[in-house]
């Protein structure tokens, strides 16, 4: 158990003192940066997905030019599947970044206006951010386990 130092506790509850405010302000600025960069990253993902689909759809013609047989339907399906994966990754990143941006924006507003309600919603945004990535990571790990299990079953 931790010993509570007399100087460390307020009379009734925890406060956001000058030191805390400075840390939170800095965290808010970086959270905004993280949000904006995440949104750019998500848009890049979507762009790459479209490029991949375009490139894969064009490739059967290139194969035929080289004298190889190609299956256009399979290539188109692969291109669409690739685009869907990149699109999903882009949307996931953008939504997560919006939570981070929300947290940053609300913390900054709360500190500027000294508004307790905005501080509450900012902590709510932080909770949503963690919950969102937590749930996604659980889904990702489950998919990874299913993939490994399916690969092992196929080999047997």
């Amino acid at each position: 158990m931790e010993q509570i130092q007399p100087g460390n506790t307020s009379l009734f509850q925890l406060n956001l003192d000058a030191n805390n405010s400075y840390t939170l302000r800095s965290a808010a600025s970086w959270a905004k940066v993280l949000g904006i960069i995440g949104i750019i990253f998500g848009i890049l993902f979507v762009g790459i997905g479209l490029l991949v689909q375009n490139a894969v759809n064009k490739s059967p013609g290139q194969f035929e030019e080289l004298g190889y047989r190609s299956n256009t339907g399979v290539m188109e399906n692969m291109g669409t599947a690739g685009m869907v994966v990149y699109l999903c990754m882009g949307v996931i990143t953008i939504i997560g970044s919006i939570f981070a941006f929300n947290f940053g924006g609300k913390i900054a507003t709360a500190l500027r206006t000294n508004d307790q309600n905005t501080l509450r919603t900012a902590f709510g945004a932080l909770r949503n951010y963690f919950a969102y990535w937590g749930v996604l990571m659980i889904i990702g790990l489950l998919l990874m386990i299913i993939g490994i299990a399916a690969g092992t079953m196929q080999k047997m």
Partner: protein
Amino acid sequence: MENEPSSSLFGLSIDDQSSTTLRTASQWGRVLSVLGFILGISILILGFVMYSKLMVSYQGTYRGSGAVQTAATRYLILCIVIAGVFITGAIFTLNFSNRVAIALNTSDQYSLNSGLIAIKSGIIFWAVIFIIFILLVLLAFIGIAFV
């Protein structure tokens, strides 16, 4: 705003509602950090397994063994870097979660301060990683354009 019953005389405070929200955030943070550790370690194990399989299957073969070995080593390095990123991010999140939980349980202002510093460091870490990734993607695009 000054008349609000939940705001303290000197500024913002962690009231009951904020405390509940922060507690849930710290619990989700702990879940996220544990999953981050698991994912990081899984990637590391996967990297080593793939590396050893590739090295063993191409050992002694004449054609292309050098290229495969180089590719396997690069793959292993990539896995180590990705695992390192996930594990470092998880450490920051775990620090935040533990310290905020202690602060809320014991009303310890010092733990709250260090918890907030941990979340700031975590956010800075991920922002820098994202910036590096975007720069790498842009470099790749420039490389493709020149080729």
